[in-house]
């Protein structure tokens, strides 16, 4: 199966990626070839197989006690932010 330009535009929107006019035909072609390639899986009989989400059997995500284990690092962390004001991340206006 091959993807159309409209398919790729929709995927790019869902992924929040701006794709330029120059990139678009490359992605239409390469994503189609990848989808075709992985389509091989559809011919495999997996009737009663339980999907595998974790590579180690019997391992579960651990929980930890809900206690404070970190100190406040917000200044250090926000040093990496593109725009910060009064300890807040600044983005373009969302609500008019």
């Amino acid at each position, binding site marked *: 199966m091959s*993807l159309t330009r409209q398919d790729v535009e929709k995927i790019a929107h869902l*992924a929040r990626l*701006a794709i330029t006019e120059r990139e678009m035909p*490359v992605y239409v072609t390469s*994503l189609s070839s990848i989808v075709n390639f992985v389509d091989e*899986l559809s011919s495999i009989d*997996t009737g009663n197989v339980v999907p*595998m989400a974790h*590579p180690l059997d019997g391992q579960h995500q651990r929980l930890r006690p809900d206690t404070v284990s970190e100190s406040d690092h917000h200044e*250090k962390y926000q040093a990496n932010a593109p725009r910060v004001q009064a300890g807040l991340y600044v983005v373009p206006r969302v609500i008019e």
Partner: protein
Amino acid sequence: MLHNLSIGELADRLAEKRVSSVELTRHFLARIERLNPGLNAVITVTAERALASAAAADARIAAGERGRLLGIPLIHKDIFCTDGVRTSCGSRMLDNFIAPYDATVVTRLERAGAVMLGKANMDEFAMGSSNETSYYGPVRNPWDTSKVPGGSSGGSAAASAARLAAYSTGTDTGGSIRQPAALTGLTGVKPTYGRVSRYGMIAFASSLDQAGVLCRSAADAAEVLKVMAGFDPKDSTSVDVPVPDYPALLDTPLRGLKIGLLREFFEGLESRNAALIQEALKVLKALGAETLEVSLPHLPLSVPTYYVVAPAECSSNLSRYDGVRFGYRCEAPKDLMDLYKRSRGEGFGAEVKRRIMTGTYVLSAGYFDAYYLKAQKVRRLITDDFRAAFDQVDLVAGPTTPTPAFAIGAKIDDPVTMYLNDIYTIGANLAGLPGLSTPCGFVDGLPLGLQLCGPHFSEAKLLSAAHHYQRATDWHLRAPGGYE
């Protein structure tokens, strides 16, 4: 020369005070300055910090402390967060990112006295098999600088092979340690999923990612892995299983070790590559191992399975790069949607965007069952095949890669061809198994690797088998011309 010595030899010289860590560090820093411009393996050199760590290591040695990694220089893949040092993950997105904390791998090695010389180039966000997707440009293979070093840990591989450090760290999601190790003549170890902490290791595909090492011998790898491995409460998938004394177990006799030859790996394998693997297996047999053929019928499905599972996880993991909290932000966004889309569109390179979109597609409404769920089911079939094989044999063996290093530019425009490079390595990631690549000969002057893979937590067996093999052969001792 100092840079050709093993970790054990360096540790002895440091302990005997025949060389200081500061001298050793200066020696490697000088090599980086002289040789790295031709390789582009190291993208950040932390000379000042290295010399300070070296001086601290010398003080510890003077105070009577001994440690196999104490005072010995290494290079970290730039996927590991290093407090106060740029951690780019090979991406424009993180070109300006100064990590605010250390990865557990970095902390553990630093505590053991390891000296970080700098950060290695890599495929962007570890997505690639040639180190050509890096924002910082391709890495060159020291064995032939017109060839790729493999990827995604291509900078780590080139740096260790060119003796720019005693060893380097890497990560392996689909072969990213073993494949570059094979293409540069190194011993690369991808441990069991959960064996080494992923805390502070920038995420690509969380059910597959695992940290490991690229060394010049199995004995060196045993020393480093012993320090890197172990339970970490900061990684929710870290496994609380005691770490064996890998170096002490290297000499465990091979007698009676059953090695399975993966039938599927030899079908269609280029004859000169196949001959080297067969030759290596003869050596292991002469050392006391038994070999028998085993079949993993679903293994040929590992590449399509991986290219559903890994992009799906990547599309989720990389959604954190939003241009708001850290990383690249586009100029003059007109609204929030424009900020997200252009920051991500401009901050990510072509292959990363391709994987994010593949993942978004396979997870999107109407396709989830057909692709993602299907792939997770096939993943179990592949894992069950391995389990059945390990009822018959202790380890399985085969080639690490289909071919030796290929030319820079040869495959970069054809993603599916590039993806097939990892055909022999991906199975271990899907099943969470440990894998190792050891040098086993040359084709047209370029190194090739023998891959060994075992059940969960069988690293000691893999290292021991490789160590015995390396005592009987000298492929791992060869150095690329100009870097001896």
